[in-house]
Every structure is written in C-alpha cells, then in structure tokens.
C-alpha cells in the first residue's frame, strides 16, 4: 500500500501583483487547515465569497487529527465531504483497556441503529484536508484558495480589514469586511494582536508515530483501539494503538517530562521501542513527532472585525479528540451567522452569540481534555495510587470502569443555555441540541433526516397534522410509519423519528442543525418569533 502522496497545491501570482485592483471579498480566511477550508465551504453554501490565504502549499504533515466524531461527520456531510470520509475511514467498534499486561476490560461501541454516521471514524487529517480542498473547487466563483500567501499584518478599520500578504513575488494588500483567523495553535494573528492565550500546560511529553505494516498488530483484521496504562513494553505511563486507513497504525507513547527529544526521535531508540510493541512483524515508520500538550483559550473569539476559529481560538490535549472536532463545531456555529451578517439579514450582534456559544463549547472541551490528561499523568504518588486502585476495581466493578479516563470522546455540547434558543420544556430533543438522525423513506428512495436539515432555517413536523402557514421558513412533515408516500413527503419507515422527536411536535432547526425551538401547536407567529430570536432579534418585525 502506497503511503500518502503529498501533492503541492499550485501557487499562482495573486491578481494584485499582476496589476489588478486590490482584492476585495466579504470574508478573508487565514489558514487552509481543516477549519479554514471548512469555513470557506460553509460560507460558499450560503452564497458568500471568501479568499483563503495559507503560507504553505501541502495538506497536514503527519496524520495529526485522526478521530472524527459523529456530529462532526454530520457537519462534514452538510459541507459535502462526509460520505467520502466515511468510505475511506476506519470505523472501529471494539476498545480494549490494559493495565500492564492485564486486560482490564473491553467495550463494544454498539452504536444505536438508525443513524447515517457511526460514533466515530479514524481518518488521517491529510485526507480530510485534501477532500475539503477538492470540495472548495466546486465553488470557483465563491472560494479563492491562495497557497504560499503568508499573512504578516492586518489593520481593522472598524468597517473593513486590510490584510497584508507576502509572496515570492512580493507583498500586497487585500481588503475584506471580516477577517477570520484559522491560523492554528500558534496563530500569528493572535500574537500580532497581543492577545493572551490562557490555560494550562502539561509537562509530559508524548511520542506520536504513524507506523505502516501489512500484518495487523492486533493479530486480526478487526479495527480496534488498544489503550494501556503502565504498558509492559515501555516504562512510561500510557500507550495507545489505533488503526487508520492504508494499513497505518497510530501509536502514542507517554514518555514522561524529562525525555530527551532528540534521542527519542532517533532510529536507535524508536525502532527497538516499537519492536517491543509490534513484535517481529515488518513495519516502517511513516511519521514521528513529540508533543507537549496545552489546554488554553482566548477569552473572546470575536475582536472587532477579526474572528478566531479552531486552534487559534482554543487548544486542547488530544485525549478525547476534541481539537479538530471542536474546531469544526466552531465553523458550524460561525458560518451561517457570519453569512447572515455579511448579507445584512442579521445584525452584527449575532456574532457575539458565536463567542458565547462556542466559548461555552470550548470550556467543555477543555474541561474534559484536562481531566483525561490528569488521569493519564498523575502528578503525585497519591494521584497515581488512586488511579491504580480504580484500574484494579474495574475488572469486577462496572462503576469503576466509568472512572477510567483515557479520553472522553468528543460529543456535541448543548447550547440550551444560549438566549438564541426558545425554551421548550416538553421537547424530546431540547432546544440547543443538534439534530438527532433517523432514517426516512421518500418516493425516490431512502433519505436520512440529517441530509434534510441545515444551511437554512427549517421547521419539521413529526406525525400527521395541518401544516402551519409559514412565510420564509421551509417546512417539512415526517409522516408516521405506514403512511402513503406522495411526491414530496417523508415517511418514518422505522418509527425511530417519531420516537426520537415525539409524535405531534414541530421543531425549528437553525442552519447549523441545532434545535432553536419546539412547538406543540405550531402557529406561524410562534415559529417566526422563534426564528427572529435565533438570529438575535428580540422583537418580531412586521414583514418578513
């Protein structure tokens, strides 16, 4: 199996340097990582043009983010790359947890039926970025990708931002109404603005390796996740072995705070270390890296006309895979809001709700990632002793298994507390929660509920009833199992949709597929009012 072939993206001399007028786009995005590319696509789906500037010209070096969670895949589905990711990715189900050479327990994820996407898949970040970059090409009039274009300055004039870019052909300037910094954990934009990035750094060092081997280290073809506390093959605290596509395996080894980086990365140290895990099987090392992890965030994600999104706004340790996933949730939240502000259909104040909602989500991700890191890196003899006893009890006591923390995998956060949502106590899917999938049947074949929701506000009624008369809000009805299919209708073939949402209820979804409100008696006035509230306007305007 061939290793990933890095194909550099072409550099083209920017029009500004060919004598053209100063570039002018509603939105400029710094960084063509997974977050910047996703945002450009989300804006394009809303009809908003963006220019993406990246100092580099290849996708992620090394696998980096490999674990993509269900909600993230649903967002990627909306952006148009979800199915491709699912097809290429490894869907794993069985996890095994070891303490020394003893298997403490194994778990089967047994996902709930009736969802398009599994709990998560493993797929290297370079594939994700490649798929996103290719998807960008579907919007030639709305997305302009400029590689080898390094942003080195910007100035916020209050109603627009001028961005200063350097290329091999010289520097130039371009202008935008909003500048979004998706320039990663070391964000030069953040540094240039002198913003503090506060949080907690962990002393522990981790060796991350991508290993290519034909024979599975699991001893079978099963795609599993093996996690060790105090592994027998390595004197550090923990190790992780995970399968990726193309016969590549991810190995994480905790090295301790004092490890000598240069020595650890040398072949003489790494190869014997890996042999102790992999035995005599043939393998080649594809990528090696040593990391220390930090959990930190900006206090505010929106600064005038400059907005931070992804790692530039917040970083977490990777246990729980919340970095890339959390960044995609940022995009999902920001895309429709920024588009509405640019198009003038919402007030600029709506952007403050991105800061509030994703600030909340980011705190949740930092909390979970910090707790996992603490469990994996006990700071004292006593912390370690408690951890050993949890691991010891876990063999026979299921409650103790739930205390073992090798990373709590990314789940969507609820935005219930945000004032964009209209509280609805009776709702089965509470306002603030993202769409819960279900299989539907149409005259033209099966569809998933997640495919019908997003990019615009939509009201969905579950069960029979009279359709509310809505101006400006599309409406869908999901008919109960056994209903006759007409040309436009959706039928709940398995009964799961009505069971998950409640028969007789109508839900209003935001463009990011989060529930904004639910109704027992959907009147057009109430639905429109909830929609106004969800775009940050408290009072119902006369004509919609």
């Amino acid at each position, binding site marked *: 199996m061939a290793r990933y072939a890095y194909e550099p993206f072409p550099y083209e001399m920017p029009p500004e340097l060919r004598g053209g007028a100063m570039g002018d786009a509603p939105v400029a995005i710094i960084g063509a990582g997974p977050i910047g590319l996703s945002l450009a696509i989300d804006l394009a789906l809303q009809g908003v043009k963006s220019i993406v500037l990246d100092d580099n010209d290849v996708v992620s070096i090394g696998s980096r983010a490999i674990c993509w969670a269900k909600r993230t895949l649903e967002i990627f589905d909306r952006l148009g790359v979800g199915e491709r990711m699912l097809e290429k990715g490894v869907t794993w189900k069985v996890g095994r947890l070891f303490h020394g050479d003893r298997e403490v327990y194994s778990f089967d994820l047994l996902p709930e039926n009736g969802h398009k996407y599994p709990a998560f898949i493993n797929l290297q970040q370079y594939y994700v970025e490649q798929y996103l970059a290719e998807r960008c090409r579907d919007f030639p009039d709305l997305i302009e990708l400029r590689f080898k274009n390094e942003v080195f300055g910007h100035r916020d004039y209050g109603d627009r931002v001028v961005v200063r870019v350097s290329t091999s052909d010289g520097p130039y300037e371009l202008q935008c109404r909003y500048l979004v910094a998706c320039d990663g954990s070391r964000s030069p934009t953040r540094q240039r603005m002198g913003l503090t990035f506060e949080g907690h750094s962990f002393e522990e060092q981790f060796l991350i390796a991508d290993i290519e081997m034909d024979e599975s280290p699991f001893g079978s073809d099963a795609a599993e996740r093996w996690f060790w506390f105090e592994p027998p093959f390595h004197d550090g605290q923990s190790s992780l072995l995970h399968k990726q596509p193309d016969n590549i395996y991810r190995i994480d080894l905790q090295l301790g705070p004092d490890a000598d980086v240069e020595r650890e990365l040398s072949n003489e140290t790494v190869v014997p270390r890996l042999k102790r895990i992999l035995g005599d099987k043939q393998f080649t090392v594809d990528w090696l890296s040593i990391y220390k992890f930090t959990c930190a965030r900006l206090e505010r994600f929106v600064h005038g006309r400059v907005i931070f999104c992804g790692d530039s706004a917040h970083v977490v340790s990777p246990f729980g895979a919340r970095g890339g996933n959390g960044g995609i949730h940022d995009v999902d939240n920001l895309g429709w809001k920024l588009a509405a502000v640019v198009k003038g259909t919402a007030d600029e104040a709506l952007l403050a709700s991105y800061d509030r909602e994703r600030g909340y989500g980011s705190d949740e991700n930092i909390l979970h990632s910090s707790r996992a890191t603490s469990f994996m890196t006990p700071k004292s003899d*006593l912390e370690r*002793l*408690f951890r*050993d*006893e*949890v691991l*010891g*009890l876990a063999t026979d*006591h299921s*409650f*103790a298994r739930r*205390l073992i923390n090798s990373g709590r995998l990314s789940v969507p956060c609820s935005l219930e507390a945000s004032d964009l949502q209209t509280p609805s106590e009776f709702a089965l899917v509470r306002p603030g929660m993202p769409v819960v999938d279900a299989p539907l049947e149409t005259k033209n074949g099966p569809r998933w509920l997640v495919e019908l929701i997003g990019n615009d506000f939509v009201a969905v009624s579950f069960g029979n009833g009279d359709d509310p008369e809505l101006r400006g809000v599309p409406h869908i009805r999901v008919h109960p199992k056994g209903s006759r299919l007409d040309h436009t209708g959706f039928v709940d073939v398995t009964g799961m949709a009505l069971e998950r949402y409640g028969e007789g209820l109508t839900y209003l979804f935001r463009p990011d597929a989060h529930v904004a409100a639910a109704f027992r008696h959907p009147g057009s006035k109430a639905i429109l009012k909830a929609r106004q509230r969800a775009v940050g306007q408290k009072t119902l305007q006369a004509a919609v």
Partner: protein
Amino acid sequence: MEKNQINLSEDRLGPHGDEFYQELLDAHEGLSLEQSVRLNARLILLLANQVGDISVLRAALATARRTAT
C-alpha cells in the same frame, strides 16, 4: 435549596457504630502504611459509588478537607 441542606453530623450507624469501627481497624490489620492507603482508596471509591449523590460527596470532601492542614 435550604430545606435539602446536607447534614453530615447526624448519626446513621446507630447501634452498628462500634461494630463498623472495629471492622474498619480489622480490615487494616497487618498492612503496611502504603497497603492501608490503597485499601482506603478502594474503600472510598466503593462507598462513593454507593452514596451516588454528588452533593453529599462534595459536602463530605469539603468537611474532610477543612481539618486537613
């Protein structure tokens, strides 16, 4: 939530207090300090799960911590 104030001082062992205390000591009989600390850790985890109520656990942690230093 005044009416649900957690009362950690009320006696809940009744006539079994002396029994429990003796059995706790017996359980530690012959153990080194480290073995005892480990036993206590297991005991805390088992009991915490039985208590289940996070507010009771928080109150107990705070009370125990108050006299720690």
